């Protein structure tokens, strides 16, 4: 069983849109990827490249031995996800597969998957919603061998409204953030001589806070002059920054998880304000305890 199951959650297989929260994590059981699995996958897919099926050929490659097809790792991840029995009766469709192959899987390797929920948003029609599932396929030595996103469409129980405290980069989230910042005297002081807009981008979502002399004047997807500068990060990076033990924006920026565009001088000048903004986003995210 998964080691971080949610007590008091819905019955197995019946997780609806409203049951998911950004930041939820599950670890699946472990399974072995066998030589027979690789042979079966070659037959099934028709990909009989010698890298996967010919020991002599594989010995001449950087891997030394035949390795599993990359997409076999995706398929194995799907199977491990199924074993969690979250959405058996509520899933409508798998929406996409964005994937990176980081290290080879060799026959005999044992792997498990780690699931992190990074987005939950209702579709316009209302009875379904998208759950963003960020996955890592991990070897028994802790190496992340594959990672990616497998968003899915699931049924909703009701018709909303939905919490926005962790809907990073959306206008609804930006409005909650602006409300928090309105009571933040340190933020008002840090931006007291400033006139501009800060863009906050999480994956494909983006919102701007238009700031004038310490006050957030407007929260909008677009502002007339555009953002003075904007912060960009993946849903995983935003989720970990907002819900992790400390505000580690600087470390994450150093690792390239957060990047900026626009006016670099103004971005540096607002170092303190940006940190206070992240503090506010972390406090906001903490208010939405599932």
């Amino acid at each position, binding site marked *: 069983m998964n080691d971080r199951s949610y007590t008091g959650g819905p019955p197995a297989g019946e997780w609806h849109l409203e049951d998911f929260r950004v930041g939820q994590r599950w670890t699946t059981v472990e399974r072995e990827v066998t030589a027979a699995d690789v042979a079966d996958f070659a037959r099934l897919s028709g990909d009989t490249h010698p890298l996967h099926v010919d020991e002599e050929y594989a010995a001449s490659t950087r891997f030394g031995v035949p390795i599993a097809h990359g997409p076999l790792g995706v398929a194995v991840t799907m199977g491990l996800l199924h074993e969690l029995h979250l959405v058996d009766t509520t899933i409508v469709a798998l929406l996409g597969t964005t994937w990176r192959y980081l290290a080879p899987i060799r026959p005999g390797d044992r792997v498990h998957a780690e699931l992190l929920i990074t987005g939950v948003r209702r579709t316009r029609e209302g009875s379904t919603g998208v759950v963003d599932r960020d996955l890592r396929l991990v070897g028994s030595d802790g190496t992340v061998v594959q990672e990616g996103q497998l968003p899915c469409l699931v049924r909703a129980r009701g018709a909303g409204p939905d919490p926005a405290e962790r809907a990073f980069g959306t206008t609804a989230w930006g409005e909650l953030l602006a409300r928090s910042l309105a009571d933040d005297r340190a933020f008002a002081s840090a931006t007291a001589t400033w006139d501009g807009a800060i863009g906050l981008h999480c994956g494909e979502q983006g919102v701007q806070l238009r700031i004038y002399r310490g006050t957030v004047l407007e929260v909008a997807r677009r502002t007339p002059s555009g953002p003075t500068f904007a912060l960009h990060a993946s849903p995983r990076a935003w989720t970990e920054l907002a819900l992790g033990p400390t505000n580690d924006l600087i470390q994450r920026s*150093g690792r390239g998880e957060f990047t900026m565009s626009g006016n670099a*001088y103004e971005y*540096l000048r*607002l*170092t*303190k304000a940006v*940190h206070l903004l992240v503090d506010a986003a972390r406090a906001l995210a903490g208010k939405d305890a599932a």
Partner: protein
Amino acid sequence: MSTTTSPARAVPTTTGYVELHGALAFVEIVGSGPTVLLLHTAGQSGVQWRRTTPDLVAAGYRVVVPDLPGHGRSEPHPDGPVDDLGTYAAWLLDLLDLLAVERFSVVGCSIGGKLTLDLACRASDRIDAAVAMAGVAQRPGLSEAGQRRELEDSASPSRADRTYLGTLASVGSALPEAEARLVATMHRREDPVVSTSDLVAWSRHDVTDRLDRLTCPLHLVAGREDYWVDTRLVEATAAAVPHARLTLLDGVGHYPMEEIPRFGETAARWLDDLTRQ
């Protein structure tokens, strides 16, 4: 009244100022026994070792803690901010000559760690033990051009905030928050021009092609949570010096002497182990 003692050029044996390379340098000297030189990080001063010194003295060392030119209580270098660690290394050897120190041990961190490696290449025959913390032989990932740009004020807004928050980002998770904030507050005392010049020096200094001259006992130390130093580079430096010891510290960042409680006892143990090699 005749002067029979204390000529102006007497060897200083206590904390105070000495004239060196055309400027006054501040040097803290405490204890008696074999000399150990403690080297601070970029833009900082000997105050970083304030809690280390007493335990090293108790362990039987004479501790020498200079403020590098332009740092702490030392006057600026007459030629302006130093951007070459070789200049500091030569200055340090001249300082030791002035203090009539022939043999010594050295512990340094960050640019002080790299200086430790440089001294160990330059003067291995004078060094009993060298502990290089958060220092690598290679050029680190930091861009020299970026640091040179930073020297222009126009590219350096919010320097105090960035030093404060950057220091908080550089210490390890084992350090309690109140102490981390103290370290960050004290690091903010820097002269940004001097600090940034130090980082220029750090980014361009490479002693890899001199490591074959490093024959003295060496211990390389790095925090596993050091945001500035890639531990793979530390391991590569260790691999290039076959007799070197290597310690990676859990829960520690870029400043072991300001993060580890009773660091002086740890340092004394490391030095003792090296001299018994």
